[in-house]
C-alpha cells in the first residue's frame, strides 16, 4: 500500500508499506539469485538448501537483495496505480535496522514528478511586423561574396607589402644567434594579416619592397607548442621575393558564366537567384523569431516549479552529447573545452541554463497542446516517419522498428503546437 503526499519543488513523497508476504517473496527471490554461486562443503555448487545457507551466512545476507527486489516491485506498482509521471530517479529512505524476517516494513521514496504547469496568456500575443523584403544592398553583398570566393591572386609588381597581401619570402630564424629547427624556409607563402605566424611577425613585414631584406624581432608566446622556444626572443632574417594581391573578378556576363551555376547565364539572373535565396532565408528567420518570441512569452507567462533533478538529468544528457562530439575529434571533454576557450564552470552553467530552458519550453508546449487538444493524426505520423526514413536512408519498416513511436508523436505534436502558437500571434 502506498500513501502519496505532494511536497515542494514538484516532488512527491510516497510512503510505501511492504507486507510480510511481499518481503518473504523478496527473500525467496534473493536466495534463488545467490544460490547458484554459493559453495558449502557437502553440497555441490548451487545445490545448497535454504536452511543450511541461512545457518552459514545468516538470513541478513539476503536482505539487501530482497529489499531491492521488493522495492522495485512495490515502487513500480505505486507509480503505476497512482499515474505519477516520474522524471528522475527516486531518493529512497529506509531504516535498514528495522527490517526483520517475518515482518513487513515501510519505506519512503521521494521523487521528482512532471510539474503541473499553470498556463498564462499564450494566444493572441502581440508581435511587431517584420520586414519580408530583401533589400538591394543585401543582394549586392551576396554577389560580392561570390566575387571574393572566386578572387584570384595577381602579382604585385610595385609598391610595398600591405595588410591583406600575400608575400612569398625566405626566412631564417635564430634564438641567441643559434638557428633552430623549423625556423628556416624558402619561398614561403604567407597571407599578411592571417595570423598564422607569431604575433608581431606579419606586422613587421608590412612596408617591405620586393628584394628587400630585413630582420624581424619577435618573442615566442609563453604557450608556444615547442618547449625550448617558449618565451624566447628570436630574430628572423627575411627576404621578400614576391608580393601578390587579391584581385576581385569583375561582375560581367563572362564571370557569371564561369560560375557554371545551373540555369543562370546573366547578371540579372544571378541577382534574381540571390534574391530568391535570401528571401527564403529571411522568411525562415522571421518565422524563427516569431516562434522564439511566442514560446518564450508563453513560458514566462506560465508558472511551474521545475524539479532540480529534471534539470540535472537534462544537463547530463546535453553533456554526454558534447562529450560524444568531442570524441569524434579524438578529444576528451577537457581538451575540447580548452580549444573552445570556455572554462568548465562556465560551460556547465551554460548547460544548466540550456537544460532548464529546453525543459520549460517542452513543458509549456505540452500543456498548451493538451489544453488546445492538439493531436497528431495517423497521416501526420506516417509523413514524419517517411521523412525520417529519407533522412537516415532506411526503409520505413526499419525506421518504425528502431524509433520510439511516442517520441515521433511528441515531435509532431510539438511542431503543430508551435505552428498553432505562431499563427495565433497578433502581428502589429
Amino acid at each position, binding site marked *: 500500500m502506498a500513501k502519496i503526499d505532494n511536497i515542494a519543488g514538484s516532488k512527491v513523497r510516497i510512503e510505501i508499506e511492504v507486507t510480510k508476504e511481499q518481503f518473504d517473496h523478496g527473500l525467496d527471490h534473493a536466495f534463488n539469485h545467490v544460490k547458484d554461486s554459493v559453495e558449502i562443503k*557437502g*553440497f*555441490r555448487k548451487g*545445490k545448497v*538448501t*535454504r*536452511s*543450511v545457507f541461512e*545457518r552459514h551466512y545468516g538470513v541478513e545476507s539476503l536482505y539487501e537483495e530482497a529489499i531491492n527486489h521488493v522495492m522495485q516491485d512495490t515502487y513500480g506498482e505505486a507509480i503505476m496505480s497512482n499515474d505519477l509521471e516520474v522524471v528522475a530517479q527516486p531518493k529512497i529512505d529506509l531504516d535498514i535496522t528495522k527490517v526483520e524476517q517475518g515482518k513487513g516494513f515501510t519505506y519512503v521514496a521521494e521523487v521528482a514528478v512532471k510539474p503541473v504547469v499553470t498556463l498564462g496568456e499564450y494566444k493572441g500575443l502581440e508581435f511587431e511586423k517584420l520586414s519580408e523584403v530583401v533589400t538591394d544592398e543585401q543582394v549586392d553583398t551576396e554577389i560580392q561574396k561570390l566575387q571574393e570566393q572566386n578572387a584570384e591572386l595577381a602579382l604585385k609588381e610595385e609598391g610595398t607589402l600591405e595588410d591583406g597581401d600575400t608575400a612569398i619570402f625566405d626566412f631564417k630564424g635564430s634564438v641567441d644567434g643559434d638557428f633552430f629547427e623549423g625556423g628556416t624556409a624558402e619561398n614561403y607563402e604567407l597571407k599578411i594579416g592571417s595570423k598564422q605566424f607569431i604575433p608581431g611577425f606579419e606586422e613587421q613585414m608590412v612596408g617591405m619592397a620586393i628584394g628587400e631584406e630585413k630582420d624581424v624581432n619577435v618573442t615566442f608566446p609563453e604557450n608556444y607548442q615547442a618547449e625550448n622556444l617558449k618565451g624566447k626572443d628570436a630574430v628572423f632574417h627575411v627576404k621578400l621575393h614576391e608580393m601578390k594581391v587579391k584581385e576581385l573578378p569583375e561582375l560581367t556576363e563572362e564571370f557569371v558564366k564561369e560560375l557554371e551555376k545551373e540555369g543562370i547565364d546573366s547578371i540579372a539572373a544571378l541577382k534574381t537567384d540571390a534574391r530568391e535565396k535570401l528571401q527564403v532565408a529571411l522568411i525562415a528567420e522571421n518565422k524563427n523569431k516569431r516562434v522564439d518570441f511566442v514560446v518564450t512569452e508563453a513560458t514566462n507567462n506560465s508558472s511551474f516549479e521545475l524539479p532540480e533533478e529534471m534539470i540535472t538529468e537534462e544537463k547530463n544528457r546535453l553533456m554526454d552529447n558534447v562529450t560524444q562530439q568531442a570524441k569524434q575529434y579524438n578529444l576528451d571533454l577537457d581538451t575540447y573545452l580548452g580549444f573552445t576557450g570556455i572554462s568548465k564552470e562556465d560551460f556547465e552553467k551554460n548547460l544548466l541554463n540550456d537544460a532548464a530552458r529546453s525543459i520549460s519550453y517542452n513543458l509549456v508546449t505540452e500543456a498548451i497542446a493538451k489544453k488546445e487538444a492538439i493531436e497528431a493524426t495517423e497521416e501526420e505520423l506516417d509523413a514524419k516517419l517517411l521523412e525520417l526514413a529519407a533522412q537516415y536512408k532506411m526503409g520505413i519498416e526499419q525506421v518504425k522498428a528502431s524509433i520510439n513511436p511516442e517520441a515521433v508523436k511528441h515531435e509532431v505534436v510539438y511542431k503543430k503546437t508551435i505552428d498553432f502558437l505562431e499563427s495565433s500571434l497578433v502581428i502589429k
Partner: protein
Amino acid sequence: MLASEIIKRPIITEKSMLLVEELNKYTFSVDKRANKVQIKKAIEELFDVKVTKVNKIKTAPKLKRVGQHTGFKAEVVKAVVTLAKDNTIEIFSA
C-alpha cells in the same frame, strides 16, 4: 558409553538433507564401537525423539600416501536414524 561419546556430529550434506526431507531419516557420525541399540538409545536421550530404525554404514579407511609416508584416511561410521512420524531434530532444520 555415554550418549555424547556415541554420537560425534551430524552429517549435513546434499544427500543427508534429502533423506531428512523425504524420509525423516537423520544421519550422524558415530563411534564405531557402538551398536544399533546403543545408538538408538543415545539419539532418543540426546534429542528427545522416538527412533524406529537405525542403519549403520562403515566407510573403510582409505590408504593415503604423502611422499614416502603412508597412512589411512580416518574410518567413519555413519548411522542413518529413522524417526517416528512427527519427530524432528532441530540441528538439521533452520
